[in-house]
């Protein structure tokens, strides 16, 4: 064990001496958080650095939950200044923040993101699904004759005669992904609620969390294919299999409109307008959270937040909408801009 001991000692000596090099004050803004918000934060970071000549903020894609963990780990230069989130901060995350001394947090709603269910343009079938059909096609267990049984459907037409007679093949994100969480909540749970048989079971059980417990699991017997975090791979697969559906963020559909087309859900097409209005059922809000204690301490943080909230970025035709962000209506935005840039109305008060 002597070598290991030696190594450890040497490493710790080096590490401690290096901590000195890190101790000098930080001049870059550090951002963590959701992979969905990541491309937008990236855009603001690059634009901000180009415009002002300030050092470019470091943006890291950690996922919403992972970002909250790091963001809430404390106040100070070792911790990030901003985190992106594809859902609102939960109460337990806020408690974690408070415990670690992060008490002043400003929440900024930047816009909406749509989850697309898309299919290749050369698909011959006529697609249009309800959330109930999506639920029946993809849940691990579906109600039949008054009880939950393993999903028996293998063709879309078995669910409803009006659907194309092709095998169910859906490529989607793995459980570790925030996109998956959003899909389960927005599509599976909602579809479950639309299904009468499932609701009867839910009422009979008298369990408030019945839907959460029984409609969250995606099937693992083949028709639903977990395709990793890489949405580009799903896009490529869809192009080779015209009857397969893919689930990914709207920005990937937006970049691939030449080969892919969104499947209307509950009769609503996926478009910027329907996502913003909330008519499209799979739309979710995107946020970022700022540590107020870091404003004025970390150089340029305040200016960066102002750039993020500016009309140039968030407005109609701003550079974030060019990247596929569905922005807020103008009046809402103006109110938000004032609140976020001043740092008033922090998250605790909003709860």
């Amino acid at each position, binding site marked *: 064990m002597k070598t290991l001991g030696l190594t450890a000692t040497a490493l710790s000596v080096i590490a401690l001496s290096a901590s000195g090099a890190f101790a000098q004050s930080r001049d870059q803004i550090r951002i963590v958080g959701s992979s969905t918000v990541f491309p937008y934060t990236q855009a603001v970071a690059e634009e901000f650095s180009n415009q002002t000549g300030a050092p470019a903020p470091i943006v890291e894609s950690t996922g919403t939950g992972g970002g909250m963990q790091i963001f809430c780990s404390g106040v100070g230069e070792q911790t990030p200044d901003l985190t992106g989130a594809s859902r609102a901060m939960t109460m337990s995350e806020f408690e974690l923040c408070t415990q670690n001394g992060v008490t002043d947090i400003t929440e900024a709603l930047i816009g909406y993101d749509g989850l697309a269910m898309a299919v290749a343009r050369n698909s011959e079938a006529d697609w249009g699904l309800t959330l109930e059909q999506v639920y029946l096609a993809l849940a691990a267990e579906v109600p039949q004759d008054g009880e939950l049984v393993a999903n028996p459907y293998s063709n879309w037409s078995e669910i409803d005669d009006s659907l194309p007679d092709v095998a169910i093949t859906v490529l989607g994100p793995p459980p570790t992904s925030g996109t998956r969480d959003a899909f389960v909540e927005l599509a599976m749970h909602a579809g479950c609620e639309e299904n009468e048989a499932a609701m009867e079971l839910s009422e009979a059980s008298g369990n408030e969390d019945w839907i959460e417990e029984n409609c969250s699991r995606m099937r693992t017997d083949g028709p639903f294919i977990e395709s990793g975090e890489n949405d580009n791979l799903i896009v490529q697969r869809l192009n080779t299999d015209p009857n397969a559906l893919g689930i990914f963020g709207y920005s990937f559909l*937006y970049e691939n409109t030449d080969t892919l087309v969104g499947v209307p859900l509950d009769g609503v097409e996926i478009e910027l307008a329907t996502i913003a209005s909330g008519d499209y059922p799979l739309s979710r809000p995107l946020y970022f959270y700022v540590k107020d204690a870091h404003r004025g301490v970390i150089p340029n943080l305040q200016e960066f937040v102002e750039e993020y909230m500016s009309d140039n970025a968030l407005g109609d035709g701003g550079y974030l909408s060019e990247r596929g962000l569905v922005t807020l209506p103008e009046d809402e935005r103006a109110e938000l801009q004032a609140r976020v840039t001043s740092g008033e109305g922090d998250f605790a008060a909003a709860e």
Partner: protein
Amino acid sequence: MTDFPNDGTKSGGQQWASEAFKGRLAKRHRKETGLKLLGLAALSLAFLMLGILLWTLISGGAQAFRQTHVTLDVPISAEMVDAADPAAGNYRGVIGEAMQATFPDAAPDQMRALSGILSNAAQFVLRDRVVADPELIGQTVEIRVPTSDTYDQLNKGNVDEGSAEATRRLSDEEIRAFRQLEAEGRITLPANWALLTNADSRFPELAGLRGAIIGSFYALLVCFVISFPLGIGAAIYLEEFAPKNKISDVIEVNINNLAAVPSVVFGLLGLAVFLNWFGMQRSAPFVGGLVLALMTLPTIIIATRAALKAVPPSIREAAMGVGASKQQVVFGHVLPLAMPGILTGTIIGLAQALGETAPLLLIGMNAFVTAAPGSPFDASTALPTQIFIWADSPERGFVARTSAAILVLLGFLVLMNAIAIFLRNKFERRW
């Protein structure tokens, strides 16, 4: 010498020419041929796979090594750019005027779309030119800037102009405008040096590997500086000084096991120790280097021990015979002779570290950083994590750039392995 009758019979009773013998011989030959074919098939399969890998990478990535540029004459008016403070000029406006002059017939609402032909970097390229040489204000300068990604895809033939207008990212009008520029000879497709000289960007046409290459270099430097001396020290002690007993056996087994530990475990260790305990900064190549050093150390120890073992005992005995101390024997004779083997092992260990992704993801080296790091303590990406980021970006241009980045990484790996082979062939001594 006994004369054997050459008629296929042998005194021992074995019939060399008998049918049974011929049958056995043919069977043995068949088995040998079978084994040879099996080996050949395995080798061909391996080559086929390598071929497919390289072919997909090269066919996918080749386009990224060239980038569509547009050449524009830009009049820099004194109204837009104040000579007293050239950095604060309205360069977006200057570019807009230049585009209007190029397309005199375009209506103002069309100009917005047409300005999209140029990369967002055009205004900053112009700004840097003017700041460097304020004399340019009032003159017309010719700039060559990248086009934005969608037009780059158009120029490379990735846009089907025959398809319905609504299904394309570019309208008919935008394509016509681009073709007009092409007809005027303003469109060129030069080598994409930005891929190596730019840092990361959200725009595919501007994104490059500079930050990742420098980040990987710093991480490997830190990895080398720590693991090389420590690894050699540990190996010398174990090989030359340590008594052979239970404890040294346990250490040996442990080191061999350590070499097989999945790299993600070292990443978690780095996260817990370097980031959380020592409070080092996330995303720094220095921390990446420390983690990679932990991973490379066992490889170097094992390679060094093998190299030390390969030095014949006669060398040690001869040196000791003339009165050298053990330390003199090791540093004066054994280590120099073992050095080619040690270096080869080290370079192969470093090449492995260069391609390592998982531990770097855990310590945050997959960040978006638009500036190359100036020191090992600045935030940065590394080559494999940059590939990871690009592979997950929605823009079309990043698909080809991902393959191109993999080719660059493979190029560095081949280079390092070639150096290892060169060192071995040049300095290796056989006894």
